[in-house]
């Protein structure tokens, strides 16, 4: 057995250059995959923040639920992926809607301070996580990718089919969100509530419905992010918080002004993460902290984010 352990590696210069270029393209694929996931989670934050101003850290747990519910549809119920995906998204939307009706709306209707729902949702984050651990167990669950693991080559890019699915779905969701906010009456209502909640209510916009819809949409997007990511990282009950932190960081970088900011923020965060670890000549552990430094720098130099307008309150 030990005779197999030593491996010969090609060591000529042109091969090294080719390898470096291939590394660069592989890294771009990796950035697009992670960036899209961060972007989706950031969008889930944005959809609630826009009309209500509530920062909901429970979103990470909704992503976690998306992964776990999706796995149970695909593996236990043996549903085809094409059916399991919408079923998961609807399930997560219903969970988020229920949370809004049961825990957030009573606070909003009683004119509670803005921090109250934030704290309630923080508490629910822990409750959701522990309940999921109790229902689905504490072990990591394998989420089978719908199109396998074998990478597909498109020009210089080599990407797993799941990565392509993540990118395609993310672009579709962002395009839909952009059309919704910019081109539909409901989207305008969301914008109006975001600008002045009180005045929007006086103009006949149903504030309760807007809030409920924003939660349901956020749950759906977060659940989709979790489902798409689960074949890469596995589905388990502790995956939520790191995703929420990444998503929120992406939102801070991108800015809450426009929908596309969430995607730009996610991509930039993933770019910083991947390229610092790969190319900065510093220890890997230190490189992991570099994206946080980037956020601090970004907040100092451009407090409104990538696409935020100057003077806009964040």
């Amino acid at each position, binding site marked *: 057995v030990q005779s197999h352990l030593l491996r010969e590696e090609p060591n000529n210069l042109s091969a090294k250059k080719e390898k470096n270029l291939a*590394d660069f393209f592989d890294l771009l694929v990796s950035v697009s995959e992670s960036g899209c996931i961060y972007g989706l989670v950031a969008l889930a934050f944005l959809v609630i923040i826009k009309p209500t101003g509530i920062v909901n850290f429970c979103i990470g747990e909704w992503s976690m639920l998306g992964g776990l519910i999706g796995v149970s549809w695909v593996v236990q119920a043996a549903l085809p992926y094409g059916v399991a995906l919408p079923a998961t998204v609807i399930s997560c939307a219903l969970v988020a809607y229920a949370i809004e009706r049961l825990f957030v709306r009573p606070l909003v209707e009683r004119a509670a301070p803005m921090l109250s729902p934030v704290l309630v949702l923080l508490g629910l984050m822990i409750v959701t996580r522990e309940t999921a651990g109790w229902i689905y167990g504490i072990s990591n669950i394998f989420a089978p990718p719908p199109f396998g693991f074998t990478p597909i080559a498109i020009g210089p890019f080599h990407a797993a089919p799941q990565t392509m699915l993540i990118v395609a779905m993310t672009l579709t969701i962002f395009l839909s969100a952009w059309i919704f906010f910019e081109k539909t009456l409901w989207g305008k209502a969301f914008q109006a509530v975001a600008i002045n909640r009180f005045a929007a209510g006086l103009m006949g916009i149903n504030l309760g419905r807007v809030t409920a819809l924003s939660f349901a949409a956020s749950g759906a997007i977060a659940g989709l992010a979790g489902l798409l990511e689960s074949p890469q990282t596995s589905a388990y009950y502790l995956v939520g918080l790191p995703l929420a932190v990444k998503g929120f960081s992406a939102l801070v970088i991108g800015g809450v002004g426009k929908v596309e900011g969430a995607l730009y923020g996610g991509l930039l965060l993933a770019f910083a993460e991947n390229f610092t670890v790969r190319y900065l000549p510093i220890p890997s552990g230190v490189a992991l902290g570099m994206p946080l430094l980037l956020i601090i720098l970004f907040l100092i130099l451009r407090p409104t984010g990538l696409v935020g307008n100057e003077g806009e309150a964040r």
Partner: protein
Amino acid sequence: MLPVFYKGSPYLPKISKFLTNCLPKMIHGFYKFSSDVLRYARSGRRTQRKLMICAILGRAMMRKEVFSRRCAAARRLAGAFSFLAILLTGARADDATVKIGVVGAFSGNSYYYTKQNLEGAQLAVKDLNAAGGILGRRVELLVEDDQDRPDVSATKVLKLIDEGSVVLLSFGSTASVLQNQRVAMEAHTPEICGNYGDTVTTKINNPFMFQIGATASEQLATLLKFASGKYHKVALITDDSATGQDTGKAFRDGLKEAGMEIVAEQTVEVGATDVTPQLQRIRAANPEAVFNSGVSVAENALFFRNYRQLGLSYPILASGNVASPAYLELAPHMLDGVYYADIIDPRKPQLKAVFDGVQREFKHPALGWEPVGYDGVMLFANAIKRAGSLDKDKIQQELITTKNFIGSEVIEGEGYSFSPTQRVGFPADGVVIRAIENNQHGPVIYPKS
């Protein structure tokens, strides 16, 4: 002056023990008795009856005429008896069990492993009780979750000691063990941890602290013996969890000590969605082999998946963490060819008995870390039996002189041994090397039987 109070008197230790152990118990018992009497006198008839039932006075005493309102004197007498019975039975219930306190991270990231440890301990207690207990007493586990927080861990250990734990098992991170062991040492309570961290027993001077898991440096030493000097330039990858960092440090130190050059050292963030940049860095450094000391299952599985997707094929030598069957499900066939240090030897009959027991009791297959909990309880049982009492100092003395105790862990034919200078019970050559083949944990390939 009494003739017992002189220097060197053989009575002094007994008097001291009486003052420190028995007297507080007597005062506590008297207080309990008094409060029970007061409670009885103040309570209504229904509560008084309940107290009677609890006191197990016998059905004859509970006949209507005894408790008749007309028979007040008999009622008071019965009441007095009942309290005496409460006191005695209560005292007997306390003394009738050997309490083993268990503290660990039974929630959060580490729960995957600690749950298995706990199930092993529960199985051992069941086996012990089925065989008549320890010193004729039933064994009882008191379990506390420290949430993987060192500060909470110390408080929980204090609670377990207050509740009467004579010994402690600790299934948490190194940081938690380092905090709680100070409390255990102050209370002279022997503690066994199943941790792999090198700092737990080797860097602290606590004679009450024992470790039964194979340390990370022992695992690495076996991996290096297996590789038999083939590598000079290696890469090291770990994760940024507390245990991952601890294991990584032991691997780094060991590799350097063995004269190897670590050409790439990479850390994977817990919660990472991609390990491609770390793997590219490793590939750019062109090592002869990759040592993996990661412990977080999701991130480690991601590492193996990305490793294969990038087409890398350096030999991987991993810590015992890879023995988890979870990897075979999370990254199917992507660990084929990985060599790993294992603390369990499938050839061992004791191990098979534990695994069968887990399947029987918990209705699921064993995952590999149950033997740590099982052996911890059995080591304590052995020490308590030899001590012949529940005196914590005596148990510690017996534990520290344990020699070649055959448990379910450790290579066939070898057992745990402790000494005042060696409180890591796992023998230095007790680790085995196995390889993963066809998405299954293969047989032991080193050392050959």
